């Protein structure tokens, strides 16, 4: 009788330990799976956010450069016809937020899209530059229109062009 009790005791103790192990493994696997999925999800989200933030920051910097700077060299709009590499920095303003007609014409007609991307250092992205009337009608445009793109950052700035308040938009898209 004593021997039998001892046997039961040993068997039950063994079972209890195995069940415990199974539960622990199951919990561990579930936990690892959840953690991996969440980790993955947030890595993707973080990457998307980083990319979006990068696009926003680049767009803000570029739009600021366009509306506040005359570019470098200052007379690039007159020399770019003969020397496409003359321009080092693109800027369209002759005064703060006042855009020069000559610079805009030179920007539209004498600088290729690839050159614009190189100068703005936005090789991975496409861009679309527009100047609009206050009612939204497009006066002029340059670059590729981001039709159907879900990853687009479009910044509007209020500027003076041809002595009239107008809207300049710069879109960066992928």
């Amino acid at each position, binding site marked *: 009788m004593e021997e039998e009790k001892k046997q039961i005791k040993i068997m*039950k*103790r063994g079972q209890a330990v195995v069940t415990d192990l199974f539960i622990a493994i199951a919990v561990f696997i579930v936990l690892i799976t959840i953690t991996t999925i969440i980790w993955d999800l947030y890595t993707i989200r973080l990457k998307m956010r980083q990319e979006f933030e990068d696009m926003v920051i680049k767009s803000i910097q570029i739009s*600021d450069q366009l509306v506040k700077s005359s570019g470098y060299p200052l007379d690039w709009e007159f020399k770019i016809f003969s020397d496409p590499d003359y321009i080092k920095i693109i800027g369209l303003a002759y005064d703060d937020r006042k855009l020069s007609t000559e610079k805009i014409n030179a920007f539209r007609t004498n600088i290729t899209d690839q050159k614009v991307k190189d100068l703005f250092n936005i090789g991975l992205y496409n861009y679309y530059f527009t100047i609009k009337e206050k009612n939204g009608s497009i006066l002029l445009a340059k670059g590729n229109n981001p039709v159907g793109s879900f990853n687009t950052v479009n910044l509007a700035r209020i500027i003076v062009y041809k002595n009239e308040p107008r809207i300049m938009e710069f879109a960066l898209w992928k």
Partner: protein
Amino acid sequence: MEIIKLNKKRGLIFSLDAAIAVTVVVIILITSAYYLSTASKESTSQVQLIRMGNDLLHILEFTGALDNAVKADIGSPPYSAAASPTATISTSLVNVSQYLPASYKALIEISDIKESLISDTTITNCSSLPAPNPISCCSLLGCNGSFNVSTLPLNRAGNYHLLVHTRAPPSNITPFISGIKGNVSVVLSILDYNRFASTYPVPFSLGINSDLRLNVSYGVADWFKILGENAYSANTSIKIPNNLTFMGTGERLFAYVIQDFFDQPRYARFYIWIE
């Protein structure tokens, strides 16, 4: 049998341990995920909103809309005393919606830098001269001699500086001016050829103050204003919603100059949001 019971309890303890651990981990994961997602949610787009507001003020100054708003409220120089303390800027003068993209809204506020036009009072009438009747002479240009003037209603009582503007006589002798407010002597020192300011603050009471007496010789005093009184402010009539998650704001200093007359620097302030 007691050992079996004990084993069962030990198992329960292990499971509880695991359950607690899982709960703690899940709570930590959820909390960190929440804070990660909300920490820098709108920072860059908020920058763009503020830039748009700054652009807007720049354009409003360029087009003369800010000047027109001030002019419509205070009139042309020499200013009348008609400036309203809380004026509404008409949409026809400052129409921000024509420059802003759809769903962007902005309120524009213009204020002085604590030199209030609310108390800018033109001196042309000395009919209420107190007895004993002092010698004075008034014309459309202003008043000479000793005379009482009344302020516009002040919004709050306090100690304020006084600024008096004079016109010199044809001989171009610098005018001489002093004052009395109630029983308190007001010493005025010259700022430039035509303007005199009190050398220390003068006590003014709430509402109209009619016990200010000015003594002017060698010229006339044509207007005075109380400096540092509750600031003049005017704004567009749009209402700022209560449930905004973010509203951008900024200001720009501009000078109201019309007909070569420099009035004073003013602040134009924007409040911009997305609806």
